[in-house]
């Protein structure tokens, strides 16, 4: 199944209004049913770290969208697949579940402006002064995605239906700036889109993307398990064990000895 047709299936499913929950997976393969029975489908549908087998790593995972509407989700899926495409060896942003991560981030505290100073007055100022728009990340995405979809509705071809080359050209046009997307400069939107894509491609799978730790395996980052006292002076060695996620805490292999508390001697004073 090619990239394009996979996305089409997803879009079509979403457009039909199907709620993709583990108990209501769209009619699928025997594999899907096995997954449900073994509880693995739950791992695929929720931001969990356990490597999912509901879809194979080179396929996009099914996502229950809570923030993006159908049109937005279709655009986001198609866009991140171009920003970090899959290749023969490694899945890309779509296969890693980046759209799921974005959906949860934008629908949560981050999207609502957590740690963002939000008082006016609003001036654009100099580039050195950083982001100065009144939009929260959630507002920014809704405004820009709606504007892009309107723009493309006029042109006739939605982003998700364009050829890969045309999609790249459209993204480059956004990146170059100069276009107004419902009050959001297109380069500012592109930067946000890229930032979230990058963040999730490389963040811990507990956040709903980086499925199967694909990016960590690709670069050789060992992940959350991190204790290298014995290895740090073995210069040039290659670490070839599989990476580990925060979600693997249940094995307690990272937890330090609880019998080493901060120690204050009695009668110190």
């Amino acid at each position, binding site marked *: 199944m090619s990239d394009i047709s996979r996305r089409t299936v997803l879009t079509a499913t979403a457009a039909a209004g199907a709620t993709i929950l583990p108990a209501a997976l769209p009619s699928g393969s025997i594999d899907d049913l096995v997954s449900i029975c073994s509880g693995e489908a739950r791992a695929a549908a929720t931001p969990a770290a356990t490597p999912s087998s509901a879809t194979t790593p080179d396929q996009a995972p099914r996502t229950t969208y809570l923030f993006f509407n159908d049109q937005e989700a279709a655009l986001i899926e198609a866009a991140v697949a171009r920003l970090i495409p899959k290749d023969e060896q490694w899945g890309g942003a779509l296969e890693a579940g980046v759209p799921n991560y974005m959906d949860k981030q934008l629908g949560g505290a981050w999207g609502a402006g957590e740690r963002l100073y939000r008082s006016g007055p609003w001036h654009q100022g100099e580039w050195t*002064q950083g982001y100065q728009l009144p939009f929260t990340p959630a507002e920014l995405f809704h405004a820009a995605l709606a504007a892009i979809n309107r723009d493309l509705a006029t042109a006739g071809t939605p982003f998700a239906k364009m050829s890969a080359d045309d999609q790249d050209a459209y993204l480059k046009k956004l990146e170059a700036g100069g276009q107004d997307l419902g009050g959001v400069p297109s380069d500012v939107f592109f930067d946000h889109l890229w930032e979230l894509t990058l963040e999730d491609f490389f963040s811990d799978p507990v956040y709903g993307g980086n499925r199967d730790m694909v990016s960590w395996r690709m670069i050789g980052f060992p992940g959350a398990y991190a204790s290298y006292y014995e290895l740090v002076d073995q210069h040039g060695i290659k670490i070839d064990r599989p990476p580990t996620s925060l979600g693997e805490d249940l094995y307690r292999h990272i937890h330090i000895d609880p019998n080493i508390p901060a120690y204050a001697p009695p009668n110190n004073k």
Partner: protein
Amino acid sequence: MATLLKPVDVVTIGVGLTGSLAALELGQAGLKVVGLERGSGRETVPDFQSPPIHDELRFAIRKAFMQDNAKVAVTFRNASDQTALPIRRWESFLPGQGPGGSFVHWNGQSFRAQVADFIWRTHTIQRYGQKFLDSCGPELTIQDWGVTYDDMEPYYARFENLCGVSGKAGNIKGQIQPGGNPLEAPRSGEYPNPPQKEPHFGAIFRKGAESLGYHPYPQPSSNLSRAYTNPLGIKMETCIFCGFCERFACPHYAKASPQTIILPVLLQDPNYELPALCEVLRINLDSTRKKATGVTYVDDTGQEFEQPTELVLITAFPLNNVRTLLLSGIGEPYDPKTGNGVVGRNYSYQTTGGPTIFMDESINVNPFMASGACGTMIDDFSGDNFDHSNLGFIGGQYVGAIMTNGRPIEFHPTPTGTPTWGLEWKQAVARHYNHTILVQQHGTSASSRLNYLDLDPMYKDAWGQPLLRMTFDFPENDIRMSQYIADKVVEIGRAMGGKQIIRGGTKRPYSVTFYQSTHNAGGAIMGDDPKTSAVNQYLQCWNVPNVFSLGASAFPQNITYNYSITIGALTLWALDAIKNKYLKSPGPLVHS
């Protein structure tokens, strides 16, 4: 109406490095101390435990340990003819919040300043002449500290022992020591612990730097090379090179922080109180405006309290020290038009940013095996360690392979010419991730009459008080310095075997949009003249003698190095003066 509380002897505004150290020393002197901290309580167990602490997104990207700038931000502009706008997200610098302050999420890079740093103006004029200094920039306002390295040496030693700094002395009482930094200021003794192990990137740098005749040495680190019991009797553990240090807290009791070196003892002191979630609004003055009577703060329920006290120590992040002075009307605010006034004057920053060295793909660098301070570095270009006569600038930078992590959201280098996204980008990231070395340039920033802090006329915090306004750009002097050294470091990169090198160096204009350094300095500087300093050499406010402003806000300009150890030493110096002189006879310790 504010609720009036029972008087105490001392209030610290902030409970980070300076606030916890001050409370410890003054508590041990028998005083009743209250530490007012705006963040919520946090301890190694259970708050800093792995694996949740090894979460790059939450701590490094979303900055969970930093001051909540949705409530209190800082406004910024490059020059006084621009309109300052709020820094809506922290990027360039990261002030901490919560007990321990920024001394929880620091990297543990543990340097002393140099002899010349404390007398920079005098030293520069003596060595190069007034004309030379003027030629570096008529706007520069560098000045002497009012203390010397010799004054500070015993306090450096005490603070290093408290932290358990792991390093190798290069100069003990003038005797050069093999294996250490031969260019450092003379030390009274060895470090309390040996240096940390040298990672691969450090070994590669060492070889390259040595081949060019430079003097590589192991970076002194407050991530410990072995188990250690500090002079307070608090046990610390060996650092395991987890690669989650700066922006994180140590789960292993291996990095010096108030939680690991001070608080376990301080919190046992029945005379000490640490109510968290207290936002100090101002220091209250009596009708003469020469004596502080206490502080007003708001707790997490929104209730306002007035805490009467005999002595107020401002022990917040440097920027917040300056803001507290301005909000309280202590000291004359600096006026950039006339050059008069002292509070906000000489705000300075740090020059950072070195080259990226792409190595052969047969060389595994393993950047994720790192502590926050396990680099190998040289001081050949630090401060005034090289002859500036024909260079047209003052100051310098240390240079070193100081990689602190391989966390991939932050670290995914690609060579020049790589597209910024797409398949080619992805494949370049995969190709270079484990074969790339970052070399740091990190150094001085001269103070200038154009750079200062004051209160913003427009933007407010969550309690309706003005935000601090920062007006800053790097002086051209700093750019010339950084660019000169950038060329030298490219040569080192080639000697390291770099296949491709992206040159480093600081550029103008300064921007708050990317991380550079959390070593914000100055704004309430120390000195021996009340016309050009906000506090005297004991960090006491000139005109309100029962208020002291402790920390890097006192630096007249910024030094080559990461500044935490110098802050600790300077705090101990001031506390000795408070204990031995001020408490015996409260009043000005220096008469102007």
